[in-house]
């Protein structure tokens, strides 16, 4: 059957990344139709396979091979193949370099310096294959005194300055924050990979792209940062305040932890809101004409709005306010969104029918953008650890069955994590809030 070409047709990616950022980048490349080979080792499988964040395993069951059932792994590594390869073993390294010879892109997010330690830094890869592209989704960039420093999403939000402006008004809050750094970096990195492919097509040469996740995040508050050299202003967190619009905030609705966000951007929207609330006295109050005036008197106004919103169910109120031309949205929880008709109609969710025994059907979230003619769908469910050793070593590299078995005996490849890693897998899981297994 002849298939319509898709953007990544015929290209091969080696995904060395662990955790979120690099995996997101390689995942996008897989979504575009490239053959993405995720490389782990039995000694160091992706941590998301082992003690997956929040101990989240499919249907809340560990199964016989828990390392293949991590829910984050099932989402993050769809459209990828899996092989195991111990890169710290010289023979493993040689095999990796053979793969470099038949690949187009490598994605990694090791701590800076690890590639050198393994003897697979860009110079080495380029020597084997001048066309190879290396995408390093690093913490701090390729140089500088902090180049070897590590980070996670929380730390990047702190060290990039983003958290210093994403808090309650003039406070330091000790709470969890929305996660943006890793998926943002993965998305941008995949864009750079497409750029590097284009460049290779013109020049015949690969490129080593190194993204500094920290600097990338700072770039998303660029204008706030510029205010310092411009006016000496060190930006402070503003909570839900807008620099010149008001009212602008989050108001309680009926029910526990139930809220609506309302943003009034001009006097016309203010008029509509006052009418909706049946509070003509607010509309007629000269103190409340113009956004800046309302901002100055926000406490008084916010109190009145909250006394009104609390009487309503958040989604019904959202619909009613939107119908009257007032920007408003219920605060949706993620479970709300999984049931939401708007996202369903837009086919945001991928429904995966996984033929492996005990896996069944589950949802994976979409990608944040769509392509009209080459849609990105889940072609491949997430792979078992080492599932494609046979294909990659046998078919792609032409190794014999004996050679492959030899590698298994030496522990260079395999299908199961080593005992020391297995011992870290939890023996039991927290109880589900209610039965979760779907009956089809």
């Amino acid at each position, binding site marked *: 059957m002849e298939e319509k*070409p*898709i953007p990544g*047709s015929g290209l091969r990616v080696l995904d060395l990344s662990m955790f*979120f950022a690099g995996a997101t980048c390689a995942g996008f490349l897989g979504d575009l139709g490239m053959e993405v080979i995720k490389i782990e080792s039995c000694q160091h499988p992706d941590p998301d396979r082992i003690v997956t964040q929040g101990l989240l395993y*499919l249907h809340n069951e560990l199964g016989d091979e828990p390392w293949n059932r991590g829910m*984050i792994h099932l989402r993050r590594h769809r459209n990828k193949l899996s092989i195991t390869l111990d890169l710290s073993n010289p023979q493993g390294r040689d095999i990796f370099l053979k793969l470099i010879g038949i690949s187009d892109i490598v994605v990694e997010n090791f701590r800076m310096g690890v590639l050198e330690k393994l003897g697979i830094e860009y110079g080495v890869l380029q020597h084997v294959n001048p066309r190879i592209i290396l995408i390093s989704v690093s913490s701090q960039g390729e140089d500088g*005194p902090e180049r070897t420093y*590590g980070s996670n999403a*929380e730390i*990047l939000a*702190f*060290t990039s*300055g*983003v*958290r210093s*402006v*994403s808090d*309650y008004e003039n406070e*330091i809050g000790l709470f969890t924050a*929305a*996660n*943006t750094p890793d998926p943002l970096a993965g*998305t*941008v990195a995949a864009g750079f990979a497409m*750029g590097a492919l*284009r460049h290779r097509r*013109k020049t015949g040469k690969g*490129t080593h*792209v*190194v*993204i500094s996740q920290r600097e990338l995040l700072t770039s998303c508050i*660029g204008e706030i940062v*510029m205010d310092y*050299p411009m*006016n000496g202003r*060190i930006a402070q*967190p503003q*909570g839900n305040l*807008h620099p010149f619009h008001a009212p602008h905030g989050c108001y309680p609705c009926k029910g526990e*932890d139930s809220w609506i*966000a309302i*943003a009034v*951007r001009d006097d016309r929207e203010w008029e509509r809101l006052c009418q909706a609330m049946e509070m003509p006295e607010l509309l007629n109050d000269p103190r409340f004409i113009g956004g800046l005036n309302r901002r100055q008197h926000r406490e008084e106004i916010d109190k009145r709005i909250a006394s009104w919103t609390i009487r309503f169910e958040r989604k019904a109120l959202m619909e009613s306010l939107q119908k009257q031309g*007032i*920007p*408003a*949205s*219920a605060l*949706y929880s*993620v*479970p709300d*969104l999984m049931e939401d008709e708007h*996202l369903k*109609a*837009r086919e945001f969710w991928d429904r995966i029918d996984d033929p492996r025994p005990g896996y069944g059907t589950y*949802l994976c979230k979409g990608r944040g*953008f769509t392509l*009209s003619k080459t849609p990105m769908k889940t072609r491949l469910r997430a792979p078992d650890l080492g599932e494609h050793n046979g294909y990659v070593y046998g078919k792609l590299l032409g190794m014999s069955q004996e050679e492959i078995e030899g590698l298994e005996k030496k522990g260079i490849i395999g299908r199961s994590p080593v005992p020391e890693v297995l011992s*870290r897998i939890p023996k039991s899981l927290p109880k*589900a809030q209610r039965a979760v297994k779907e009956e089809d």
Partner: protein
Amino acid sequence: MEFLSDVTVLELSENISASACAKMMAALGASVIKIEAPDRGDPARRMGPFPNDEPHPEKSGLFLYLNMGKKGLTLNLDTKEGKDIFRKLVAKSDILVEDLGPGRMEGLGLSFDKLEEAVPHLVFTSISPFGETGSFSRYKAEDIIIEAASGLMLQHGSPEREPIKLGGNIIYYRAGASAFMGSLAALFHAETTGEGQRVEVSIQESLLHDDFITVEAYLCRHEDVRRRLAPMLLPCRDGWFYIRAFTHEWPRLTQALGMPELEKDERFIDMKRRSEHAEELNTIVLSRFGDLGKKEVYDTLQKNRITAGYLANVEDLFDSEQYRSRGYFVTVDHPVAGPLTYPGAFATMGDIDWKHGRAPLFGEHNGEILCQGLGYSREDLVRLGQLGVI
């Protein structure tokens, strides 16, 4: 030669995100033509910060930053001649990126279907709060509304208080990144097959895509994970620092604390026990680090390969030796705003440079684009100006 040095991009932006997308393309060498309405210009021109807090349409920090390295054209798309010029520009372009809102381009008679007919290789990228289709698509929205509708806001803030949004315009930059990635994938495809396509970014979906574990927590255990308290930041002499003692880092942390005996201490033997005894552990950590400066704690921990951070404010970024040594901040001159300092390259690409240009003045390149590019005469320009087309 840069990644996109022979690519032409048209940008129509009134909501930051298309500008943020095209900004990355300009940095990679694309020739970006920013089209503004002659009567009002990009609203970013009216948003600050401004030098000395004096508003001026050519001095907006947001505008200058978002539009580094682009060319400026004014064009009234409500006029027939404006539309004609636009179509001629599209024919010479590879990518069109816009964030005017669902239905706006269709309303102007410049829908993807119509443009594609004439320019089959066109990549047409649209960014909107809720996507071009679906029951929310025409809802009125801005930053806080989209964050509320994406599930993000219920994750951010204290459980004892109202949820809060992210600062500044972060979500628009985030959506711009999705548009950047999608556009370049579509461009690569168009150059392979000659077939362009529509790239559609829903900001709501791009934020939901970023969710960490909430979708999975619900799927696996019907847990509804929301914002919660997390005593992550610890105070020190001049601010706050943060330690994430991963399992394999715990022995190194006990070394850094100068208390190797803690490694086998029953209270702290694994992540679970450490979080149960967080207060005791914090007291110990503070006794060692509480009197140091935040940057000093950060360096000490990181040099011992312990994942740690410090709460950096904007001033700290300019003090950062890391940023300074990499030349992250760049000073770029501008004919009206003068030399200003901007955040610059966040990536290196071997020997390929990141392009740092300045933002265009209002209509600065009308002559160049229309006369040299499309063959209009100087007289045409005067006439188009009088008619309010440019």
